[in-house]
C-alpha cells in the first residue's frame, strides 16, 4: 500500500521531467482558459446585470444552469465543432492544447458570467443613485462596479479555476491525452491508474490536491485582507 506513495514522493522530490511537463501543460491550459473566460465573462456578466431586455430571465437561468454543465458534454460540443467534418474542422485544432483551452473556457464562462451578474446586480442596487448623481451613466458604471466588487469576483474566478483544473472529461475528449502534447494531470491520473502505474497517479493526485488547497487558502486570505483593508 505504501509503494505508490514512496514512488510518488520520489518523483516529486526528484522533479521528474515527465511529471513537470504534465503539470506545466495543465497550468498553462487552465490559466489561459481562466483569463479568456474573464475577458469575456466579466463585461458580459456586468452588462447582463445592468441591462433590461426581453428574454433576460431566460439568459440568466440558462447561464446559471450551465454552471453545472458536465465537462464531457462541453468536450463533446467542442469536439463536434473542431472535428474534420465540423464547422471549424479546417483549423485543425482537435487534439491540441488550444482545443483544450476552448473546452475549458466553455466550462468556466457560465461561472464567471453568473457570479459577475449577481455581484454587480447587488452593487448596482446600492450604487445606482450615487453614480448617477456623480455623473456616471450605465456604461461607465460597469468598470466602477467591477472594480468595487473585485473581492467577491476573485472568489468566483478561483471557483472557475478550481472547476477547470479538476475536470477530466473535456480535456480528454478534445485533447486526446497524447503524451508530451496534450496530457494533463487529470487525464494522466486516469490513464496511469488504469495501467496500474499508481506512483505517477498518486504524485499527480497529491499535487492537484495541494494546488486546490493553496488556491483556497489564497482566496480566503485575500478576502480577509480585503475586508480589513478596504471595508
Amino acid at each position, binding site marked *: 500500500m505504501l509503494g505508490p506513495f514512496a514512488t510518488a514522493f520520489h518523483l516529486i522530490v526528484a522533479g521528474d521531467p515527465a511529471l513537470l511537463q504534465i503539470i506545466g501543460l495543465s497550468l498553462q491550459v487552465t490559466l489561459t482558459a481562466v483569463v479568456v473566460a474573464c475577458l469575456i465573462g466579466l463585461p458580459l456578466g456586468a452588462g447582463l446585470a445592468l441591462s433590461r431586455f426581453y428574454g433576460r430571465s431566460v439568459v440568466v437561468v440558462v447561464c446559471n444552469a450551465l454552471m453545472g454543465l458536465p465537462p464531457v458534454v462541453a468536450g463533446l460540443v467542442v469536439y463536434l465543432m473542431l472535428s474534420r467534418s465540423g464547422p471549424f474542422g479546417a483549423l485543425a485544432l482537435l487534439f491540441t492544447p488550444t482545443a483544450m483551452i476552448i473546452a475549458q473556457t466553455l466550462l468556466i464562462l457560465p461561472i464567471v458570467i453568473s457570479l459577475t451578474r449577481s455581484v454587480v446586480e447587488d452593487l448596482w442596487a446600492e450604487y445606482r*443613485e450615487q453614480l448617477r448623481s456623480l*455623473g456616471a451613466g450605465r456604461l461607465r458604471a460597469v468598470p466602477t462596479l467591477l472594480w468595487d466588487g473585485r473581492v467577491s469576483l476573485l472568489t468566483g474566478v478561483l471557483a472557475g479555476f478550481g472547476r477547470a483544473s479538476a475536470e477530466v472529461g473535456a480535456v480528454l475528449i478534445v485533447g486526446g491525452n497524447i503524451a508530451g502534447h496534450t496530457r494533463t494531470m487529470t487525464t494522466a491520473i486516469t490513464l496511469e491508474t488504469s495501467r496500474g502505474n499508481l506512483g505517477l497517479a498518486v504524485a499527480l493526485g497529491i499535487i492537484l490536491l495541494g494546488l486546490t488547497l493553496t488556491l483556497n487558502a489564497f482566496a480566503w486570505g485575500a478576502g480577509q485582507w480585503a475586508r480589513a483593508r478596504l471595508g
Partner: protein
Amino acid sequence: MTYVHPRPHAILPLRLERLGYAVGGKPLLVDIDLEVEAGRRCVVLGANGAGKSLLLRLCHGLLEPTSGARRWRNGDARPAAQAMVLQRPVLLRRSVAANLDYPLALRGLARAERRRTVAETLERFGLAPLADRPARLLSGGEQQRLALARAWAMRPEVLFLDEPSAALDPSATRIIEAMIEAFSMDGITIVMTTHDLGQARRLAHDVAFLHRGRLVEVGPAETFFSGPRTPEARAFLAGDLVW
C-alpha cells in the same frame, strides 16, 4: 486656497412649476411651485414622508417629474454644475483621495487638474491625513465629511443635501454645519433637508415647508420661525404635528 467659480450663477435660479410626482397613480408630490435663488440657503422642512427627499431628488435630476416642469436658467435638462449628497452617501471601495478623484475623472478633467483639485479639497476640509485611507473604514463623521467634500470638489453652483447630519453626534454635526457655511461663503447655493429644527434655525435663509406632498409655506426663515402662517406649520414647529 481660492475657490474659483467657472460660471457664476449660470444655471440658477431653478424654477419648479406645478411640479408633481406620482408612483402608480399615487401622488407623492403635488403642484410644487418653488424658485431656488442663487446664493441662498434654503431648508426644506416637513414630517417624515412629507416628500422632502423626493423633492431634492427631483431637483437634482435623479427622478423626472410626472407632471409640471423643472426649469434651470440655462435650459439644460440636467446641468453639470450641481451636486447632491444623498441621505446615505455611497463611498467607493477605494481610498479617500480616489473617491474625490472619481467624479472629476467622470467629467473628463485632465490628470494634473484633478490632482490639484483633490489636493486642494483634502487640505481645505482637513482630510489630508486620511488621503490614503480606505473610505469605507472611516468613522461616520469622517465619511460624511468626505461625501460633502466630494460634492464640493465638483464645483457645483447649487448643492442639494439630504439630511446631511442625520445619525451624527453633536461634534460631527457642528463640523458638517461649518462646512455648509463655508460652501455658502464660496457662493454655492444650498438646498437641504433636515429633521433638526435647531439646525434649520442656524442655517436657513429660506424655508420651504412640505406637508403631505404639498408645499404649504415658503418664505424667509425669520418669518417662518417667528410667525408661521399655516396651522400645519404651527403644529410642526410646536412638535405636535400628527400625520
